[in-house]
């Protein structure tokens, strides 16, 4: 047993070192890269959005200022002696001076296009709307303007007086930057918070993995019991896989141990008998008697050889059932392959063996070869020990697949089934017949497939032994079956 575990360890070390040649990125590294990417992308998007928003907000705020000033100036325009007169209100300029560093410009234009007062060089608006914003420049600096139109209909004067008010854009840009910067600072702080939170989550998320590792390291080398570590749901698959693996390992080791002890138990008696016979033969002087003894030695040797075959066969099947890859197979094909092994050309024609299969496939997951072996053993038992006709029946419902072997004899009691399917053969068992071994193979295969072995005996219908296992549902074929 120790030897086996060491082998396993050796294997696992080899596996680890080959995997280590291209070590995948650590979980923490992956998370950091993912979060970093999100933050970077988000940061760039937010920066652009913040600048756009800042510009928009600053534009709105200062445009209101412009309109306020322009409206005041426009409102203070009166018609005196049929001429418009602008009593420039100081508060209008105070309003504009709120943008402290900006130079200001204004122009009031009569309907005939003549400048009444202010900066003659200011551009006229292209739009006819009553309030119109536009960007232009003022003595070489970029500037924002609003033109407000006021319609007069006075005696001797009618038409629209246009008041244009503008300022350079320093304060707007400063405000836009400030808004953008503030937004950016918030995003940066949030980013730092997210990184800290992520680091914390990574640490706490990886703690269960460390616990599993610690638990495995602390174990006694002979301890193959399932891991009992509290882990989050996401890690239960890993723990489950480890536990299944250990379970399988444990079973294999058990199997091997069983093989050794069974062999010792089963082979000791016939070999001792053979040896006694051989000694007897050596001492016998009568050639006739000696020939009889040799005859007995031969028949015993044949029986021993069959027993050895069966035992090795059983060990192989059990091992295979445990280790082979489970694929989706049709239980009908298993039944066909198993019965074909008994086909001596006459057994079907004589009606001794018959196969009863459904029309639709019965899908299960399992190893075809070990299942065939199990079925063969059941059929062989029925043919040898049962009476009357033997039928092999495959059936499937939605969730359960069945393979039954029936005969018309009285069969075994459930206690006998239990006894024979045990690993150790009964003391009173007559070595050489192999019944017990066949049943124990079927039972081991059933266990490896999560199946049940069930025996039913009814006086009218004879004896039936059934392998029940979970059925697979194949999409599209569910309806057909």
């Amino acid at each position: 047993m120790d030897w086996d575990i060491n082998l396993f360890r050796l294997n696992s070390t080899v596996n680890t070192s080959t995997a280590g040649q291209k070590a995948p990125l650590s979980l923490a590294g992956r998370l950091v890269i993912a979060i970093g990417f999100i933050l970077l992308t988000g940061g760039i998007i937010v920066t652009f959005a913040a600048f756009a928003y800042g510009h928009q907000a600053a534009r709105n705020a200062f445009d209101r200022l412009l309109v306020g000033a322009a409206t005041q100036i426009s409102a203070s325009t009166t018609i005196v002696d049929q001429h418009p007169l602008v009593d420039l209100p100081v508060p209008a300029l105070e309003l504009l001076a709120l943008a402290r560093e900006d130079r200001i410009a204004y122009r009031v234009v009569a309907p005939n296009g003549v400048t009444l007062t202010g900066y003659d060089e200011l551009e006229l608006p292209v739009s006819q709307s009553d309030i119109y914003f536009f960007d232009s420049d003022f003595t070489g600096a970029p500037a924002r303007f609003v033109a407000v139109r006021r319609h007069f209909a006075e005696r001797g004067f009618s038409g629209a007086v246009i008041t244009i008010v503008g300022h350079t854009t320093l304060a707007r840009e400063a405000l836009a930057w400030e808004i953008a910067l503030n937004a950016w600072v918030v995003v940066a702080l949030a980013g730092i918070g997210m990184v800290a939170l992520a680091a914390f989550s990574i640490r706490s998320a990886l703690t269960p993995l460390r616990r599993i590792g610690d638990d495995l390291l602390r174990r006694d080398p002979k301890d193959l019991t399932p891991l009992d570590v509290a882990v989050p749901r996401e890690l239960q698959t890993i723990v489950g896989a480890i536990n299944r693996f250990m379970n399988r390992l444990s079973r294999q080791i058990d199997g091997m141990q069983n093989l050794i002890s069974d062999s010792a138990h089963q082979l000791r008696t016939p070999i001792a008998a053979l040896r006694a016979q051989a000694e007897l033969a050596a001492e016998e002087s009568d050639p006739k008697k000696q020939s009889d003894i040799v005859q007995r030695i031969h028949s015993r040797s044949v029986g021993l050889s069959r027993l050895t075959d069966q035992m090795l066969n059983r060990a192989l099947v059990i091992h295979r059932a445990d280790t082979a890859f489970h694929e989706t197979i049709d239980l009908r094909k298993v039944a066909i392959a198993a019965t074909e092994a008994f086909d001596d050309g006459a057994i079907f024609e004589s009606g001794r063996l018959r196969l009863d299969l459904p029309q639709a496939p019965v899908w299960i997951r399992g190893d075809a070869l070990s299942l065939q072996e199990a079925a063969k053993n059941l059929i062989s038992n029925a043919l040898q020990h049962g009476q009357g006709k033997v039928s092999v029946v495959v059936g499937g419902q939605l969730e359960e697949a069945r393979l039954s072997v029936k005969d018309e004899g009285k069969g075994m009691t459930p206690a006998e089934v239990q006894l024979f399917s045990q690993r150790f053969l009964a003391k009173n068992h007559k070595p050489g017949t192999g019944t017990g071994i066949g049943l124990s193979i079927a039972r081991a295969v059933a266990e490896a497939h999560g199946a049940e072995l069930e025996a039913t005996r009814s006086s009218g219908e004879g004896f039936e032994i059934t392998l029940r296992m979970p059925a697979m549902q194949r999409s599209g074929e569910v309806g057909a079956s």
Partner: protein
Amino acid sequence: MRFQASAFAALLIIVPANAQEDTAFFGLESSSQTLLVRSTTDIDVFAPVVEAFLAQEPELSVAYEQWGSNDLSSLSADNCETGTNSADLVISSAVDLQVKLVNNGCAKAHFSAATSNLPTARNWRNEIFGVTEEPAVLIYNTELVSPEEVPASRFDLIDLLRPADSRFAGRVATYDIEESGLGYLFAFMDSQQANTFGRLLEAFGRSGAIATCCSAELIDGVANGTYLIAYNVLGSYALGRAEADPRIGIRAPTDYTLVLSRAAVIPKDATSPALAGEFIDFMLSGLGQSAMSQSRLIIEFGASASANPTMPGGGPSSLRPIAISPVLLAGIDQHKRAIFLAQWRESLRRQ
């Protein structure tokens, strides 16, 4: 005809050059760099400041041109447009016209520790700096006006003029704001401060107050007894005269006192803007400020220890510095000015 036209054009160009009132050169002719300063301040008032500056920078020289405020303003505007003949530094008491120059983008910015310590009312865009502190005051004839009669505030002045038989009728003078840019600026700021101004103008009109051109005439008139009181006289000039002439008494109105800061601007086409910046920094430094105090370009009064004892008046809370900001553009707007002058004329004419 062609010749005549070009001669006329030449004359036009020369005319502004001839409008300068006086020039002076400070420092050695051989010095490597010369700073050209154009200013409205009298040479003899400003000379100590320039000399104090040159004491710090002996390798420099300063060419100083004294101008009338309107001429200086239009010259600076021309220089800005043509980009030639620019001074290195323009200092003017016509703060509103200086603000317009800056607003038109004709100034060069200057940053320094000294400029950033200036209050916002004395620094706009780092392109125009208020370098002096000169109050607008009431002056009176000490022989003809008894201490009890001396008005402490505008309300007192209105009360003095109220009686129909007031002996002050026709003997109170102020700037003719159509002639004097400084007088206009003070009057316009008065109109913004309080509605006292309307009542004061009304009292002036009713009592037949005199509007006359310049600081010198106002001070002379008070000294010789032609006027008993003159209103809104620039403190720096009045104080200078009062020290030599005991007949002149000075009072800063306690309701509020306007304080003018002459504005220094470095034109955008200045040939030595760095030197001009150094000169500005000097004027704002401790040495410069004490030189300006001696020239009475910085006047402290009220309760502080360094206050000028000959200038009784309100405390610092009554001071109204004329803020250097684009708001001053309102006063020099064509229409606004026409309307304001018409109101002023109308008020004073009323008997």
